[in-house]
């Protein structure tokens, strides 16, 4: 009986399978296929190019990867910086706010304010931060604040300096997503089993020890989840970059997602853009596999 082909089950999952095939599997295969060709938007496969695009991306295109000049630069490096800083900062800020605000009188109020950026579109947030980072203290809130605090301070062009602009955009993203991290961690924190913490108090553990040895390990699942989500957010970043800097100054905020857009749609290089897409896929895959395994474990 068990081995009998289950028609009903297949009928139910067939529509989903078809949709996934049409909108996910097929385009992915096509992208990988195109990445081996030179061509245009009408015919992406004019000339077979083998691994030529990958070769140029990794060795000859300084907008994508430049390692022969210190500091290394290019879209790949900028994306790696995103992957390091976005998850770290959102989780740290989210956790600190969640724990410190917990049980306080104004908890709901504080949390609402931190969460508001989540409700703002990325475009609006970008425009806001373009003003915040303006180099003229009359318009730029950040420079105005620094000039007010440190009278000696020379206003900085946060989005005009190549080494700084990427971090400036990352910080705008942190501002947006800290609310999400805070909400999830706060919910998890409130759900922690109180008996264990009470037992630790009775055993004489200090607040610091309780945080590091108990709370943090017990929050590892939501933290892992957040880190994975933020890494994926970092990898697919394009909207903030597009509105805030257009990849500039001097290519300093170009990230992989933005490169795909520029090469494919602005420069019309379908094969080259597809190759960048394939590299992005290679970067995302292990993270997604890891998350799938984690989810399975929990089930």
């Amino acid at each position: 009986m068990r081995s009998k082909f289950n028609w009903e089950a297949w009928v139910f999952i067939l529509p989903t399978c078809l949709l996934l095939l049409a909108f996910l599997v097929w385009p992915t295969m096509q992208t990988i296929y195109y990445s081996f060709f030179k061509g245009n938007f009408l015919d992406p496969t004019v000339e077979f190019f083998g691994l030529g695009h990958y070769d140029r991306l990794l060795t000859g295109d300084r907008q994508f990867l430049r390692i022969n000049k210190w500091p290394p630069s290019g879209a790949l490096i900028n994306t790696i910086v995103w992957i390091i800083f976005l998850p770290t900062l959102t989780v740290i800020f989210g956790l600190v706010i969640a724990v410190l605000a917990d049980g306080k009188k104004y908890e709901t109020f504080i949390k609402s304010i931190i969460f508001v950026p989540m409700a703002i579109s990325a475009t609006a947030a970008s425009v806001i931060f373009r003003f915040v980072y303006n180099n003229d203290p009359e318009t730029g809130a950040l420079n105005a604040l620094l000039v007010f605090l440190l009278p000696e301070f020379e206003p900085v062009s946060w989005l005009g300096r190549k080494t700084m602009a990427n971090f400036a955009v990352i910080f705008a993203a942190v501002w947006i997503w800290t609310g999400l991290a805070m909400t999830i961690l706060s919910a998890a924190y409130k759900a922690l089993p109180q008996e264990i913490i009470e037992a630790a108090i009775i055993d004489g553990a200090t607040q610091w020890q309780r945080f590091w040895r108990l709370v943090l390990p017990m929050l590892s699942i939501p933290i892992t989840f957040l880190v994975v989500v933020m890494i994926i957010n970092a990898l697919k970043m394009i909207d903030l970059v597009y509105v805030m800097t257009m990849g500039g100054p001097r290519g300093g905020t170009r990230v992989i997602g933005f490169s795909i857009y520029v090469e494919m749609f602005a420069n019309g290089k379908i094969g080259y853009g597809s190759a960048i897409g394939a590299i992005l896929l290679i970067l995302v895959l292990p993270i997604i596999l890891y998350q799938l395994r984690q989810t399975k474990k929990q089930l």
Partner: protein
Amino acid sequence: MKIKFMQSLLKFVIISVTTLIVSITSAFAAGVSILAVWGGDEEAGFRQLLDGFTAETGIAYTYEGDRDVQEVVKTRLAGGNPPDVAIIPRPGEIAALAKAGALVPLSTLLDEDYINANYGKAMVDLGMHFGEFYALPVKASSKSTFWYKPQSFKDLGVETPDTWDELMVIADKYLAAGKTPFAMGGRDGWTLTDWFENIYVRVAGPEKYHQLFVTHELEWTDASVVEAMGYFRQIVDPDTKIMGGAEGAISTGFIEGMDAMLQDKAEMYYEGGFMGGIAKQNFPNLTCGKDYSWFTFPSINPEYGKAIMGGGDFAVAFSDTPDARAFWKYLAGEKGNTAWASAPKGAIISVNKNVPLDVYSPCIALEAADLAGADILVFDGSDMATPAVGGDAMFVGLQDFVADPDSVNDVLEFIEDAADNSY
């Protein structure tokens, strides 16, 4: 219960049938679809022509405005659903479309006599690709307009400059007076390419200009490019001459640069004639010609004088239907263009030679005269270059140059490398 069910069934049927009819009529009968870059005032101006077309012929039109028109055209072509007519600013893009076989030659849609009766040869030449007339120039603007404030010049005791050296003298006088001579809108990389192109055509002439941007017979490391960059360097090095220094220049948008000049944070701003319309919108209480005005980008090599770099938009055809033919006739004709050029909002400088000059406001009439009277007229070079160079590598490279003028050789090698991989 039953009546309710019948009611909703009826509703459903009515809605489906209407949707069906609407979609069928829009697919087969709804006249002409036009895709262009314009929104806001610019769209309102264009609609003067479009509405005139429908009033005269009874043929309906659908207009879609999208800032990313080039990307949208490519996507819709790939999906087999291009608009009938698209208006595209970049000749390089049009050449690519023509090469890919996506365009209908305009000679099949319009009589040659009709074209010649309405357009000068120089304009028709701008729309030629691979020996075929594919693109009708529909509006033009000068990109050799250097904005300044007449009162500020008067206070400084200077006249508008004719030569590059005179411009640099004015810059130094402003510096000595404790003012910032130039604002720059370098966050938008194309403002820097416009600077470079104006300088380059004045240093090397229109022939080399064509070889550098269009055919890439000339390499970016050529001595003429290096020489032009030397002049550009006089503007950006030392960076005290530009508002916010080098970093300020490459983080300021093209509108912010003009705004800054009008807010007295800088004294001059170079960018095209269209900045006049933007200034009018952002500072309605200031008047062009009185509070701000422009002089023609000064000459460098007397041989080439004050060459005019023009920008413009071109209409291209993706289909050949009777409705489309009627539209092309109207689009290229005197009546529609006069209506467009004299629109209360979003008026353009028409390139149709039958549009009378008196439809323009004084500041724009000046620009139209500059365009008409130019000895040397070249099109925006980065718009003619292949997009990977003119819309990407040049942006990044020139930002690099502004930030670090010593890196000029590195920058030129970088642009040459991109060109080498794209032409």
